[in-house]
């Protein structure tokens, strides 16, 4: 499974998305489940799935799937495949 697939599954599970709702452009205002609790869940999920735990400030700054990809790439993970 690619990092992209892992991230898609993670975000779908945390935000309880319907099929087709997920995209790289998905952001905080797009689904009601992306609230302050989801920020915590995403931080926990990134740690469990990728071994990368954002600091509280970093977690708050993750406002879209693209932001999360950029954060993980900054930690050395590849999303090019």
């Amino acid at each position, binding site marked *: 499974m690619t990092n992209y697939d892992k991230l898609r599954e993670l975000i779908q*599970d945390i935000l309880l998305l319907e099929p087709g709702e997920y995209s790289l452009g998905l952001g905080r205002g797009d689904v009601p489940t992306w609230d302050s609790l989801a920020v*915590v869940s995403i931080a926990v999920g990134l740690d469990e799935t990728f071994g990368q735990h954002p600091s509280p400030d970093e977690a708050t700054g993750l406002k879209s799937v693209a932001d999360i990809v950029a954060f993980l790439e900054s930690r050395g993970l590849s999303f090019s495949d």
Partner: protein
Amino acid sequence: MTEADSRTAAARRPLCWSPRELADADLGAVVVVGSPPRAPRIAGSLRCPWVADLNQLPQDLDTLVVVGGGRRIDQAKWWRVQHRPGLRLVAIATIWGSGAENSPIAVLDHDGVKEIHLGEQYLPDVRCTFPEFAQEIPLSLARSGCGDVWTHALEGFLSPLADRPLREELAALIGDLLGLPIGRDPRWFEYSALACAAQARSSVGLVHGIAHQLEAPLRANQADGNWGHAALCSLFIYPVMCFNRQGSDRFATLAAAFGLDADGLLAHLSTLFDPVGYDRALPELRRHWAETLRDPSTRLNSVLVRPGALDYFDRRVFA
């Protein structure tokens, strides 16, 4: 309420009085509210009136002494804020578990729908423990209360919102709990108050998410069972902590970092597990899994709870 407000509320604490200090205090015009036999007994010792219901209170009042479990104490906390903000409130718990007497949270139950209020205005001014109440608690309720205390301590400790000082505090408390037998022991009153107050500074987790979502349907569909909040916490703490342990290394890492034995903890919690009760509750967990996933407590669990996690509980992987 902001997070800062919440932390301020959690940092303040009610005074802790002994029964002697309560009897000697100048309480002014005082009334005791609560159910028999304990509330009228305390009213007798304070030589003051007793009422069964908050709506029966007189207007001219300086101190309200509420005697009861978490639901009764939370009602009084909320009632004071709404109707008599200047009133002194003394909370006397008749059972451990909720820690309502030491918490800035007031949970109201509207036919199974929980309404949660948080703020320092909900803190009682004084909490008072009557150790002799411990022997009057039915054993099954006492055990459930122990499970509730354990749940507050462990979920607060493991919470992603807990900081290091809080974890140090809760690890010490958990160490003490390991030496405390499950059952009737008056020391549970104090640990209940401490665990609840500490947990209010972080969060609870999946055990509470399940309890919140299953309590009303279980009460409605299995009226012959004891399906209170504490009973559900007691029933699910062992399965959920096993789930947390296998779900990531967070449980083991935190336990080790704070001097706790993860295996010993789980072995201790297994004594709370009731397989018969679990079998009865499981169909409702399946039915209400979607709501459980959305519960705010579940979403702050130490390990991410994904939709497929139901399978872990369904197949009793922990057993």
